[in-house]
């Protein structure tokens, strides 16, 4: 009913609304980005989209220090951060938890080939998001990754 109503109001119904109906409240997500405003925006957006268990952290070293295996289903990691870059962080985290999925995000002009070149061992890095990203797109990518 709600969807239908919104669909009437907007010519392009928001995909986020569809995902909200899905049960992904239990998906545990950790967002690691050095920009507090970005993590805040992501967290708020995901909460609003129905992701209940979203945590953010702005310090990659702290994130690694506190990481425990099996704590999260998905990591969203910024590639360029001070002190430790996203790739190195993910390499370290995989040593702790080999099953955790990852989505890299960056505002840099890095293409997928370049990513493969610096990170050849990870065949499972399917998710690569370029900032700025539309929140609906973000949710769509996350859902694609966790399914």
């Amino acid at each position: 009913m709600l969807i239908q109503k919104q669909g009437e109001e907007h010519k392009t119904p928001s995909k986020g609304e569809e995902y909200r109906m899905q049960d992904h409240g239990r998906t545990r997500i950790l967002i690691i980005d050095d920009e507090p405003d970005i993590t805040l925006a992501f967290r708020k957006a995901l909460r609003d989209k129905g992701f209940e268990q979203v945590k953010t952290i702005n310090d990659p070293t702290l994130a690694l220090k506190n990481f425990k295996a099996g704590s999260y289903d998905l990591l969203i990691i910024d590639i360029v951060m001070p002190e430790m870059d996203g790739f190195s962080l993910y390499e370290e985290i995989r040593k702790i938890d080999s099953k955790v999925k990852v989505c890299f995000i960056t505002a840099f002009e890095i293409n997928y080939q370049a990513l493969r070149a610096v990170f050849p061992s990870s065949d499972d890095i399917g998710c690569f998001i370029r900032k700025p990203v539309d929140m609906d797109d973000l949710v769509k990518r996350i859902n694609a990754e966790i399914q």
Partner: protein
Amino acid sequence: MLKPLESINSKILLKITFLVVIEIILIVGSFCVLAYFQSQQSSLGNSINIAGKNRYLTANLLLQSEKYLYGLSSDTSQLKVAMNSLKSNIIALKQGGMISGIDLKPLPSNLLDLWNTADGKWNIFKTYVTNRLVTPPQARTAMDQSTTRKVFESMAADLVESSDKLATQLGQQTDKNSQNLMLLQILFAIVIVSILVLILYLVARMLRPIFVLTQATSKVERGNLDVSVEQKGNDELSVLSRSFNSMIAFLRDYIKKQGDLTRQVEAANEELKRKDQLKDEFINIAAHELRAPIQPILGLAEILRYRKRDQGDSGNSSSVSKQDDDTLLDIIIRNAKRLLRLEQNILDIARIDSQSLKLEKERFDLIEKIQNVINDFGNGLSNEKIELVFTPSQKEPIFVNADKVRIFEVISNLLCNAVKFTKEGKVTINAEKQDTQVLVSIKDTGSGIQPELMSKLFSKYVTNSPLGTGVGLFISKGIIEAHGGKIWAENNANAKGATFTFRLPLEC
């Protein structure tokens, strides 16, 4: 175009011509002398012939006399002819002249005695013949005939003998002269050859610079410019040598300058490449920096839009969610401002580069301004482990005439850096008036400046942080220098961290 040879005022040509003329004179002179002696010699040879002819003429006279004596002939004409022939032959021997088509020179004076002897003998013979045959033509007895004939023969023999003596003497004289002539020829040959060798030596010495120059130029051709040729005298080749030396010096100088220039160009090229690379990096980082604020703006604006729609659906909104919305709006505004600042930074870089940074000067209290910056900054400081301390050396206001906004920008920039590189510790700000200037320093206890970064700290796009654009210090320097001031940085002695200081004229 080549000048005609005669019109060239050539010293070297003059020298060579002079030497050649001397040689020619010498050769011609010696030929003349030799030719003279040669002709003397040949006339002496003629004299020998004439002297030899005496023998035949004497014999002829004797024959004619005997023919006459024995009555075989009564005509004395033939006898007279024979006598005249002999007489003219003897006279010609002494005096010279043309005889039987032969040019004869007079007899050399040293042989006159011999000739006189011969002439004496001839006169005796002639007188006797004349007396005995021509003058008394009476009949003779057989005994007379025999005696006269013996006298005749004896006189003829005397004449022949003296004549032969003269001929022999002439022959000896000729031999001697021949020897002398040969010696003279050898002497002349030696002199001519010597002079020729001397001339050759002089010419070679004159032309020596050509050989030296040839060697030198071939060295130059092989790329060796470390040559110089000796230069003395004042002829064309000396001038050429001098010109060559100065030309080589010029070339050396030119090549050196060219090398320096090339090195400069190469260095400039390297510098340009480096700057270009830095610019690329800057564009990359700037793009990243520009995108970073867009993410919260975009994300939070989307959230607010959904919320507004949901609220519209439910018709009301709680005060809690309204407060949250305000926070989100604040974040959006803050990020929009950040974008604006980035854009301004980029513009400022261009203005500093083109030296067209505009200042809006006004009179204000720097102490108060610094206090404002610290208050602003301190409020927003999330890291509580950093202590901000402002300890001005004097409490009275320090009034400066400067661009308030720009100075604010510099101080907050330096403060921002100090805090960024100080995880934990103290940031001390000081301001001090010195005569007509004010000194502001910001000292931290952070990680300090790496030595390799120190020299290019205030250059464009130089950053110590992977997320820094490296323009803050460049812009700060541009602002301070536009005010006529100076900014510098140093690592703290005996302590952690660094101190950034700027000096500003009070009336700038």
